[in-house]
């Protein structure tokens, strides 16, 4: 029996003029896995996430969520089908409190956002769900504070909370620990690893220690192409990967 991967791309291509941002990208995410996407700066990792989530339109190729071809769906429709992402740079709602922000996402998912004649506090379940998500990421106590007043590490956690509020099947994390000091990033990834097995996670990361600890498989991208794919051990010893990361040193 062949199980359908929960997310797959086939022959994804994207150029900006003469710059090749993505070339023949083929990959699959089986259900429940924790994969890491690594590569040097400019390799096209964020571009890939933008293509998969619909913020960029590919020149060619297909994106499949489960059995469904979502290539022509708008970004918010893809979220409704269970595909969520976080942003490398905090993309939050500065003047909303953390509770309001997550409640917004929950209400959107539950279809409450169409109602304009009933008061928000009436939706007790949605609010409780939002609070629950925040509490699970240790943001419960600070949930009434405005987003702009939260500490940077807390804002990164809020990024993830917003994505979780959409009840995703697939979660794409773009450098979730970017800018977070070492000790806090371990805690952040601890929170990520505690996520339900029902959610499949692909995260972009530069820190190889974290990749080793939290990923079961690694995809390496260079110059818009997938260079190689394998377990963290295989990748660490692969000569091609070493050349990409250390090649400049050798010429010195």
């Amino acid at each position, binding site marked *: 029996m062949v199980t359908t991967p929960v997310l797959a791309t086939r022959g994804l291509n994207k150029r900006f003029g003469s710059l090749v941002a993505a070339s023949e990208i083929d990959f699959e995410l089986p259900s429940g896995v924790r994969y890491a996407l690594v590569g040097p700066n400019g390799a096209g990792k964020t571009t890939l996430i933008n293509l998969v989530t619909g913020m960029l339109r590919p020149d060619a190729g297909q994106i499949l969520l489960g059995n469904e071809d979502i290539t022509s769906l708008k970004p918010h429709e893809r979220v409704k089908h269970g595909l969520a992402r976080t942003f490398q740079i905090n993309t*939050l709602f500065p003047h909303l409190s953390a509770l309001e922000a997550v409640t917004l996402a929950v209400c959107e998912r539950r279809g409450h956002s169409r109602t304009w004649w009933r008061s928000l506090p009436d939706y007790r379940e949605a609010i409780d769900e939002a609070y629950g998500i925040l509490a699970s990421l240790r943001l419960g106590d600070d949930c009434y504070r405005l987003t702009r007043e939260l500490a940077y590490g807390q804002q990164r956690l809020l990024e993830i909370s917003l994505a979780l509020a959409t009840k995703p099947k697939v979660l794409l994390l773009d450098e979730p620990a970017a800018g977070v000091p070492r000790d806090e990033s371990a805690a952040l990834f601890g929170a990520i690893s505690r996520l339900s097995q029902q959610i499949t996670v692909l995260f972009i990361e530069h820190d190889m220690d974290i990749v080793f600890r939290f990923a079961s498989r690694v995809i390496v991208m260079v110059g818009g192409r997938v260079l190689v794919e394998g377990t963290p051990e295989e990748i660490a010893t692969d000569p091609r990967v070493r050349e990409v990361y250390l090649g400049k040193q050798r010429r010195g």
Partner: protein
Amino acid sequence: MATVGPDPVAAPQRHLEAQTRWRPIETAFWVAAATPLLLLPSYLQLASQVAVAALFALSLDLILGYAGIVSLGHAAFFGVGAYGAGIISKYGWGEPLSGLLIAASLAGATGYAASFVIARFRHLALIMITLGMGLLLHEAANSASWLTGGADGLQGVRIWPLFGAFKFDLYGYTAYTYSLVVLFLLFLVARRLVHSPFGLSLRGIRENPLRMPAVGAPSRAHIRKIYTISAVAAGAAGALLAQTTSTVSLEVLSFQRSADVLVILILGGAGRLYGGVLGAIVYLVARDQFSGINPQYWYFWIGMLLVLVVTFLPNGILGGFAQLTASWRRGSW
């Protein structure tokens, strides 16, 4: 079974509820709004103008303060409402309430059509499109003088007494009561909307339009909805003006009017629901006091006010108050 102490599980909901509760100062405000009828009868015409301007500013607040849509052409819907009410009465149907409903619906339909374009754009293109639409409608009304009276204004507007008994006369009692009630009712609707899940989504669009699709929000559909609702309210304000003054001139569609309502809203503070009302009171009362001065020089001071407000009081009067009370509460002066 007696509850001991507060229920911690309900705390988040209660927190959000506290923000939507009707405050005593609001009740005081609306009661005070009725006092000109008793205490200041000579100012009733001015008070009517304030009510109309407040409703118009409230309609702009819905799209600007809550959804972040900058419009330089909102007078288009005000004008459609004004001309709608005026033209209906000119051709024989002068009943005010039904006229108001029809005119506001007409403005809403215009807004609905425009919203399909508006929702697709941002930044400079959006500003230009709103400006262009306003100018276009103004030109169209100017050219269609067979319908609108052109530069001479609409002739023959005759409004029947309200409920058959209350005439719209120069004393202004009917005009002000009518305007105030309509303003209050639409204000209640706006207040409800702003505190609803839809209102929360609008604030999300204003705060970060990029994040909204990433949480599954259909931003364009939301924008189309609020734009239409805003157009209905603006049209109602225009109809009120036409019905209480029995005149409609091209000025209701002018850029001047679009700019004025923007100034009024920013002065009071956008995104705070009462900003439009407060701004209307301050602006129109001040303009009335300075009415002896040549109108051109009035605009000099308005210009300076804009420069000062943007530089020093970016959230308007209400925002300034909010900052003052917040720092007072924190104990830091």
